[in-house]
């Protein structure tokens, strides 16, 4: 009898371990926390602070999703991922979503079976060089040694850019941003190339940021955004609409400061639907009515998150540019909540 039970349990455990779960939301709820894949360390986007707590622009998306599900942005576990293992970790179910300045491309979306749910930062690839080299354009980089993160779209763009301009270069493949920083500062490579936002963030952490310039050429489109596994559309919907909620909140003027007041007494029906005082949008996602309110309360709306971590008031100092709301001439545009 005991033996039968033992084998039965073992078999059941094995089958359970072997299944790719089709319902991520149920798994997350049962686990009691969200597992979010993020950067191993890129100041402003995702990096542990002095107390080891992950903070940053990308991290804010993870916390917003956790808050939408549990009403608590702290019910979350972060898994630092490198450029080389991020997709494998997501496909294998080690993480529920990845928010790790990852570029949305056709092959990643279609062939790698990932689902990008939106664009939280419109970026482009740039080049950073020490000022003393006297380089003013990326086209002058013939023969330069270039540090590049392995397995990224930047690696492909770099190859294309140098081919198109018929100039040569020596790639130095590296694994993490920290490693690139070490090699670049020691002069083991002349140029560091990655997304312009990443360059700004990296430069901000240098001792003498003024000694380095970011060249004017932006050689690619790099729409960065959160992504989930292909095959669970409900989960993709949830993450997509948390993202949209952060965008809509900025457009509608909902901030972490006035959200309580607005949810108690708003006349605007779209704000009421967003914050769950009217309609049943939350129920449709399988969440509570105040899901979006919790998500926005976690770190603020899109504009607040931007200003807090990477905006012009921070050492990283990125302008809104393409990432302004569509009403301000930017590209950020949330579909209607109805």
């Amino acid at each position: 009898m005991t033996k039968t039970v033992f084998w039965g349990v073992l078999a059941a455990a094995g089958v359970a371990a072997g299944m790719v779960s089709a319902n991520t939301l149920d798994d997350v709820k049962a686990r009691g926390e969200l597992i979010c894949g993020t950067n191993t360390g890129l100041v402003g986007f995702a990096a542990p602070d002095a107390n080891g707590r992950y903070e940053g622009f990308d991290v804010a998306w993870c916390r917003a999703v956790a808050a939408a599900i549990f009403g608590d942005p702290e019910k979350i576990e972060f898994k630092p991922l490198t450029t080389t293992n991020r997709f494998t970790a997501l496909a294998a179910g080690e993480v529920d979503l990845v928010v790790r300045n990852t570029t949305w491309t056709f092959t990643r979306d279609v062939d790698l079976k990932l689902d990008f749910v939106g664009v939280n930062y419109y970026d482009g690839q740039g080049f950073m060089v020490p000022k003393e080299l006297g380089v003013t354009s990326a086209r002058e980089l013939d023969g330069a040694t270039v540090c590049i993160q392995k397995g990224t779209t930047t690696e492909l763009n770099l190859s294309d850019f140098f081919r198109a301009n018929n100039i040569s270069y020596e790639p130095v493949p590296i694994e993490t941003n920290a490693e690139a920083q070490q090699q670049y500062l020691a002069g083991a490579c002349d140029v560091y190339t990655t997304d312009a936002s990443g360059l700004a963030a990296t430069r901000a952490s240098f001792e003498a940021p003024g000694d380095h310039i970011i060249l004017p050429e932006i050689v690619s489109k790099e729409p960065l955004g959160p992504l989930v596994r292909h095959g669970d559309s409900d989960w993709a919907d949830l993450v997509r609409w948390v993202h949209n909620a952060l965008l809509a909140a900025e457009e509608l003027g909902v901030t972490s400061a006035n959200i309580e007041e607005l949810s108690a007494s708003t006349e605007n029906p779209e704000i009421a639907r967003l914050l769950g005082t009217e309609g049943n949008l939350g129920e449709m996602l399988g969440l509570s009515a105040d899901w979006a309110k919790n998500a926005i309360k976690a770190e603020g709306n899109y504009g607040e998150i931007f200003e807090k971590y990477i905006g012009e008031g921070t050492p990283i100092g990125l302008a809104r540019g393409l990432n302004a709301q569509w009403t301000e001439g930017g590209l950020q545009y949330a579909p209607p909540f109805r």
Partner: protein
Amino acid sequence: MATVSEPPQGGFRLSQLIYDTRYRSMTIQIVTLIGVLSLIYWLGANVAYNLAALGKPIDFTFLWAPANYDINQMLIKYDSQDSHARAALVGLLNTLLVAVLGCVLATVVGVIVGVLRLSSNWLVARVMTVYVEAFRNVPVLLWIVLAMAILIEALPQPRDFRGDDPAASMLFDAVAFTNRGIYLPEPLFTRSLGEVPFFGIFDISLDLLALLAVLAAGMLAVRAIGRRAERIQNATGDRPTTWYLSLGVIALPVLVLLALLGFHLGYPELKGFNFAGGIYLRNSFIALWLALSLYTAAFIAEIVRGGIIAISKGQSEAAAALGLRPNRTMRLVILPQALRVIIPPLISQYLNLTKNSSLAIGVGYMDLTGTLMGTSLNLSGRELECVMLTMLIYLAISLVISGVFNLYNQRVKLKER
């Protein structure tokens, strides 16, 4: 009353499979075999099912798609429009390069250190002990990363060589040590014979082939000279001096060939951002090569020491009695016998070094793990295929190495007749 010797009644019963010692072991083996096979089947079926559910059935066609990325160290021609398969081949050759050079250096250092550890000079023996203990007790990845960090931080940047009063200068105006690697002079031929394609996979330099052919012919001539000296020694008891003959038949034809080909050295020179020309040993290669070699050499030193100690003291005493000097005793009497003890564990060290070379990923050396299992995997998203292929390739390399050395072992081991 039944007698004790009465044979048991009835035929075969199922319970005998467990309780009868004649059948029990067979039963256990069959049950275990079935269990193992079904576990393997279950794992395989599960993988296939899950991949199908993800919409990613196993598919190797990505290997023929353009790789789209560049590789810095290439032993054969490659550009970003070549296929993933060719990128994997470039990586494989880089793996083999560092493995072969690593095995050679590790053996040389290991034998020297192993012999010196037995030295009667207290200081030399202790220094070697410290070397062995330091290297074999720290994980090799740390040595690789440390070597890389030292190369990057300690050596000058190429731009330090610039200007009227440069902070750094080249050794003999020929060798440049920079934190991107070492630039050496390269052999060039003004009247080169050109290259021939090898099955369309890569080109072989005819100059190199000609040099190898001349060298091989020289080796054969040296052996003939040696045999002649042997004959004369056996007949007259005097061995003729042959070293100048040997040197002549090896060096002269090579020098003549080099002169015919118009051999000269191409020196590296500062051009733009980097040195141009010359042979460029990247710092990732140097770090990996040195760290792997020195690490493995520590183990080989212990194997060599063990092999020497295993030879009975009587052998060296007998050699001394015959009037052999210590270094000849070592070379002619001790080492040949010690080899029998040394070879088998040495093979496993070579295998270790080859497999450890996959730690190249720590310093960005583009070996097989950097290409096929690194960037190609990442760009194509074919995790399982890339991992299985890489495992197969490493398995094949290891089997070839152990096969070759087992053959060698057959030759040197004690012949029992």
